[in-house]
């Protein structure tokens, strides 16, 4: 199992920050997921052996956090918030709009592997509700029209 040099530098730098190796598990999983796209069996085995954990322990942690996934996702992970602030400002409408436009439901991926849609809990953007997060980028004060533009832009970026 090979990771990028960037990952290796980060990993090497991070581990000694913690009193025990296993403490580095969650950030390591996040970095690996960002790089590979999801946490494959191979990634799990590699990280387990690096941090002296069993694969089961790594899987336990992955299954606890909804942001970590063992299944491949699309290139853009569209996370629409439907928590209270977003809900009262039309978050659910945005979610349904995305679902209709992309033709997929919660935690599903489009056939071209470009988009994955997810309904998520509060992403901390209540002041600009309704909000959505695509990978690590925030999109705020959404309306269905604005959402359309955003998705089209991503589609263009993804097919270039």
């Amino acid at each position: 199992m090979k990771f990028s040099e960037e990952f290796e530098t980060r990993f090497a730098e991070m581990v000694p920050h913690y009193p025990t190796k296993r403490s580095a598990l969650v950030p390591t999983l996040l970095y690996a997921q960002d790089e590979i796209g999801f946490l494959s069996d191979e990634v799990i085995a590699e990280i387990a052996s690096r941090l002296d954990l069993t694969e089961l322990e790594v899987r336990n942690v992955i299954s606890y956090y909804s942001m970590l996934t063992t299944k491949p996702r699309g290139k853009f992970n569209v996370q629409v918030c439907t928590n209270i602030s977003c809900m009262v400002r039309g978050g659910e409408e945005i979610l349904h709009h995305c679902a209709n436009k992309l033709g997929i439901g919660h935690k599903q991926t489009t056939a071209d592997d470009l988009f994955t849609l997810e309904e998520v809990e509060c992403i901390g953007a209540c002041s600009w509700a309704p909000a959505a997060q695509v990978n690590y980028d925030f999109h705020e004060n959404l309306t269905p029209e604005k959402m359309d533009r955003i998705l089209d832009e991503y589609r263009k970026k993804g097919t270039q």
Partner: protein
Amino acid sequence: MADVTLTVDGKKLTAPAGTLLIEACKSVGIEVPSFCYYPNLSLQGACRMCLVKIEKMPKLQTACTTVVSEGMVVTSDSDEIRQARKSMVELLLGNHPLDCPVCDAGGECELQDMTFSYGAAESKFMEAKNHKEEQQWSPVVFFDRPRCILCYRCVRVCGEAMDVWALGVQNRGVSSVIAPNKQDHLECEECGMCIDICPVGALTSGAYRYKTRPWEMKHVGTICTHCGDGCKTTLGVRRADTGMEIVRGDNRDKSGTNGDFLCIKGRYAFDFANHEDRLTQPLIRKNGKLTPSTWEEAFTLIGKKLADVRDKDGGQTIGVIGSTRTTNEEAYLLSKFARVVLKTNNVDHHRTADFPAFASALRGKPEATARMADVFSAPAILLIGNDPTDQHPLLAYQIRNNVRLHRARLYVVNSSPIKLRRQATNFTQIPAGAEGKFAAFLAGNDAAADGLASLSKTKDESLDLLALRGKLLAEEDLIIIFGSELRGSDIANIVNSASLIPGAKFLCLADYANSRGAADMGLYPDLLPGYHAAATSSQFHQEWGDIPQTPGLDLPGMVNSAEDGKLKALYVVGSNPVGRLSLDPFVFSKSFVVVQDIFLTETAVMADVVLPAANAYEKSGTFTNTCGDLQLVKKAGEVAGTKSDFEMIVRIADAMGFDIKKLIPFGGAMRADMGQSRGAQSGEADRHAVWLEMHGLEPKLSPLDPMAILDEIQRLVPGYDVSRMNLLAGNSEHTTLANSGPGVTHKPESILPANDTLFTSGTLGRYSRALNSVMESREVKTTEVAAD
């Protein structure tokens, strides 16, 4: 630690600082209910059943995570608390199926008990229950997900106590679920601890599930018949067509030295007893074929033949091979029968440890043998050779948990990186076969270090051999445990080296349930019981009368003698030398061979007479584990058509025309008082019987009563004069070797280790479906390699 005083429900109580409130309450008889709390496991605080009111604390507190403090005032039961517990049970029952009438745990389920104590008959939940199909995780472990109440006991016992870490929790909140390490199945030591510790019926055992109900069985706590550790296993038996069938083995009786522990063999490998290949009638070779016969015919034939050979050719032409799985009483009786009735010293058994050398090294040292219980409490342990995780699972458990709970220092010296190195303060790898050199080096022979250095490597701290020796010799109350790698003078070396260590104790590992007993009871050609030499006069020569003094033949000697046509008869009791020690079966074709066994083994097929024997779960007596702990074996199962080895030996002696009273001290001058003389108060007669029994004075009315021989063993075998009362109460009593006879030096090659794994158990293991099914499931999945 200093004591603190607190008040619970108006009762003043004192407990050491650091005690958990739940334990402090228990110590004065106040039961605080809990699911997730389990003594000696890490704290979870998940189930919220142990909520109590503590004055000056705002909300109800969990008694399982609260440490007692000075002046604490606690209420363990009030309307508020009952209401809280009721709500917890209601939540747990929210998705718990109401299948108690078919659930294995029904009748001994903690959730059932709690529901009766605290639960409500009605629930506010209207939702449909979320059903999931049950899953088979391994041949012995089944998981019924909806029944799980997420107490995490299984996860903790598997990881912390067993160091296997095969179970985990996945997902979060209400969707949390217990998960096995290989996604859809388990790869583990199959000990079944998770099943026993499960408070409900979520984890059930492949051996027992849906077979019967707990209240339909009789539960007999006896000693496991597999390895030499002497775990107590509780066998659940019920009436069957063929007698009493064993349907379950578990840890219901936690009073043994094993406490919570049992491995797969103690828990599931009782099933050989129900195997359809069990012998249930005597077989006599007629026209070259083993043919079913009657007991009468068999005993008459054996008695006549053996008496003829003894009288015509002399006792030295008869060989006797004893067992490492028969009781002490049977081993002693066989030893005595050979000498007194057959007039032969040709007695041997499958030796897996050099106990004669051990006994001789420990003469005059009364405190120098370790009990199994000591291994859990000693401050430091040195383990030389062996792999206890495979060969002595209880010992491994004791060591592991001593390190975990008491921070014992463990020094491991082994030729391979055994699993226990993970608990070791120091692990030194030496070349295979160099264990003896290490013993010599420890004893001060610096030259012996030469052969050790090459592979030497240590964990955590870099210790060279000299530093390691320095550390070991600076320890106090060190327990030195060694496997069969150390023999003869190695044992003397190791014992001598420790003479500088105050309070040092030793533990010599042998492989079978009563290997130690077989050795102690003198199943040797040159040793009588208690390691007294056959050649020199001892009390046995006076007690047993005219017995041969020339040392007899050991097993290879008997084979040679048979090849030369000199061995006219061979009597094999519960042993399979042809199968286990690769003897040529045709060697004995000219001898008259009698085999007593539970199966038609490789040895039995070549016999002239085969007698169907009862196994250790089907008789009473005592076992001595490898540490020398003596424990009571209780009869649990019964298979019609078999007899105990004890009875068969007695009947053969009888058929030979021997006066049985000279073999078994039964009857005698004492007149049996069965309580008749104590009038109408029947209770008084019962109490009298208990008193007689605990003092070993109950009338031995039958020559088939093993307790009559136990009387003689306790009187004559050094170290066995222990409290009968304690023994009968189900406790272990430690026997020491301090007053043994001098022992003798045997050839090192006479020791043949069994090398059993967790899933094998000599000939017996081959007839266990549980063990075989685990091994078969492994063969299919050879591509997966366990983490350790």
